[in-house]
């Protein structure tokens, strides 16, 4: 089998797996939120506990009328969901699910992930601009503000394990965390602090409460996607959740030792998935317990607190690594 066919095949499988995961992660989130809010959540569609609900939602969205506002910039408006979705899905290309299991374990994996996931802002801004709606425009403005402010701390936090492992390749980063008895080292202090910073930046990058000023449905109704309906809305939603899952995977790989865990080798992907779910649920937990903060406060948190903190953390990590290597030599 030629490598091209192989990669195409794996890519196809991963793509569908991502879509499947997105579908069911919405159910997971809804059930989790329902528990927090002393509700039951989806229940009736599919026995037991509404497990068919995501399918029903997807079908409903497909059957909805596709509305294009008359005043919208048609090209920009129609292309925006795709421009938003593609980078969100593309980041999965470099995620290894187990040693050798993944589309492409690039030697610049982390860099690829960070670069491509930052591209989603283009689609987002296109959507906000092309809708020709004031709410959407304001939301697009906020989006640009926020992404610029939070990509830097996000990158700096993600670079801490990179520096510790000495590689940009995700599988190498994971192997560097291997400890005894199949456990992983949750890099003491430095890595743990970086993990916290990573989670905060993740909340902002994923536009979740308390940093969801883009969507801000009590102020901007639905933000940049206020005019989207039907399948275009579904694509944006898909992209958002895909991004969320991808970031959870990245967190699990960088900080929680990916597939490392007790048990035989085939348990690897299971451990990986579990860790990613934990990261996702922590983010969800924060989302459902905080109120949203204001745009100026969000920027202040990023530039005055998070960015200097992650920068110092990164420098400290570099110092530690440099001292370790000279001490060893």
């Amino acid at each position, binding site marked *: 089998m030629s490598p091209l066919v192989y990669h195409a095949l794996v890519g196809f499988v991963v793509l569908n797996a991502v879509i499947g995961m997105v579908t069911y992660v919405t159910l997971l989130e809804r059930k989790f939120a329902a528990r927090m809010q002393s509700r039951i959540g989806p229940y009736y569609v599919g026995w037991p506990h509404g497990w068919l609900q995501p399918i029903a939602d997807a079908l409903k969205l497909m059957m909805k009328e596709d509305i294009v506002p008359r005043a919208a910039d048609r090209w920009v408006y129609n292309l925006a969901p795709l421009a938003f979705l593609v980078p969100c899905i593309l980041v999965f290309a470099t995620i290894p699910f187990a040693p050798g299991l993944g589309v492409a374990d690039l030697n610049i994996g982390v860099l690829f992930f960070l670069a491509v996931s930052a591209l989603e802002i283009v689609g987002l801004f296109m959507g906000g601009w092309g809708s020709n709606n004031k709410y959407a425009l304001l939301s697009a403005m906020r989006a640009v503000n926020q992404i610029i402010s939070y990509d830097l701390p996000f990158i700096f936090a993600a670079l801490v394990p990179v520096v510790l492992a000495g590689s940009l390749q995700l599988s190498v980063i994971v192997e560097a965390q291997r400890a005894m008895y199949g456990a992983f080292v949750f890099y003491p202090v430095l890595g743990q602090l970086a993990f916290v910073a990573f989670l905060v930046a993740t909340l902002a990058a994923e536009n979740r*409460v308390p940093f969801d000023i883009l969507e801000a449905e009590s102020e901007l109704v639905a933000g940049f996607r206020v005019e989207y309906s039907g399948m275009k809305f579904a694509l944006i939603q898909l992209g958002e959740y895909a991004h969320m899952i991808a970031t959870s995977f990245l967190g699990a790989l960088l900080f929680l030792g990916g597939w490392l865990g007790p048990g035989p080798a085939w348990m690897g992907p299971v451990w990986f998935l579990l860790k990613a779910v934990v990261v996702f649920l922590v983010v969800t937990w924060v989302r459902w317990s905080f109120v949203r903060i204001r745009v100026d406060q969000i920027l202040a948190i990023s530039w005055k607190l998070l960015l200097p903190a992650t920068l110092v953390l990164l420098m400290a990590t570099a110092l530690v690594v440099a001292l370790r290597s000279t001490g060893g030599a």
Partner: protein
Amino acid sequence: MAETTAQQTVEIGYGGTERLVMNMGPQHPSAHGVFRAILTLEGETVVAVDAVIGYLHRCHEKLAENLTYVQYPSIASKTDYVSAMTAELAYVAAVEKVGKIDVPKRAQQLRVLVAELQRIASHCLWLGTWCMDMGGALGGGATIFLYAIRERELVLDLFESLTGARLLYGFHQVGGVRYDVPAGWAERCRQTIDLIGRRVDEYEAMLEDNPFFLVRTQGVGVISRELAQDVGVCGPLIRGSGIPYDVRRTEPYSSYQDFDFKVPVETAGDCFARYRVRMVEFRESIKIVRQALDGLAEGPISSRPGVKSVGQVRIPKGEGYTRIEGARGEVGCYLVADGGAKPYRLKWRGASFSNLAVLPYIIPGHKIADVVAIMGSVDPVFGEVDR
């Protein structure tokens, strides 16, 4: 002074020259009904706001002229549908004042009881919707909202077993109340308010230990003492601005003078101060409900017979104004009677109406996100604004 500053566009050194006029409402997730705010924006900052009301006008005052004293109390509850008990009470109190009708002790205490339960229910809804304004329907705000609604349901259950209705009760009638407390109700009521008292502690812990909540509310939407007096805001708004004005205390009605309660006052005048006032009011209301249950006098619940015909209440010619402290502030009812079975003229003074008037003074200079926080802290109910 007041008129000119409201119309003025507050100039803020933003640098940009382009302004955006944005309609918030009448259909908007945080319009609390049908409120339309025409915002002039410079970037994210609101430089001017034009408030438009009237989308929920239902000719309540005209309706009152065409309905008898027996019929109207259950319609009066539709003016402020979130706090229906106090709206009814304002109307029947006005009729009793003009008609010089006595109310038995037990009925007065029952009125206090339901009014305070209603205040708890209304504040629950306020807390939930306000937090949802700030936290989003897809975030922590929705969590608080569902908690608060859960407690509101408990109070509504009590009302349901008392009157048979959950939202618009028709509990009051001229001369007293229509229903007496059913067997076992008092015990259920005690359990419910104990539970709510504990839950209010939980809300406070969840909100006040949360720095994001604090930065969203402290120093936002400050109503100064002078402004509060000039505009004539009432209820938790004026008490949040440092003026201890509460009709229950300044002009006791319906045996409030027999009850021991505090009137909470905060001096900061911001959203957080108004929040604190209402949180204390939760507790004070619980205290009053307990006292009312303990000291409930025996005797008739009405000085007049139950409803036999719609025209059975006739009051002599005269006019009078009564005011009571609703959940949102002073609810007034001015009644002119001509000796028939229907009022000649009725005028409502809605608490939300005068409270909303403060918005154009305090919103300019804030960000869009603060607009919804301030709106929510005012706690308007548009049935009462437009009537």
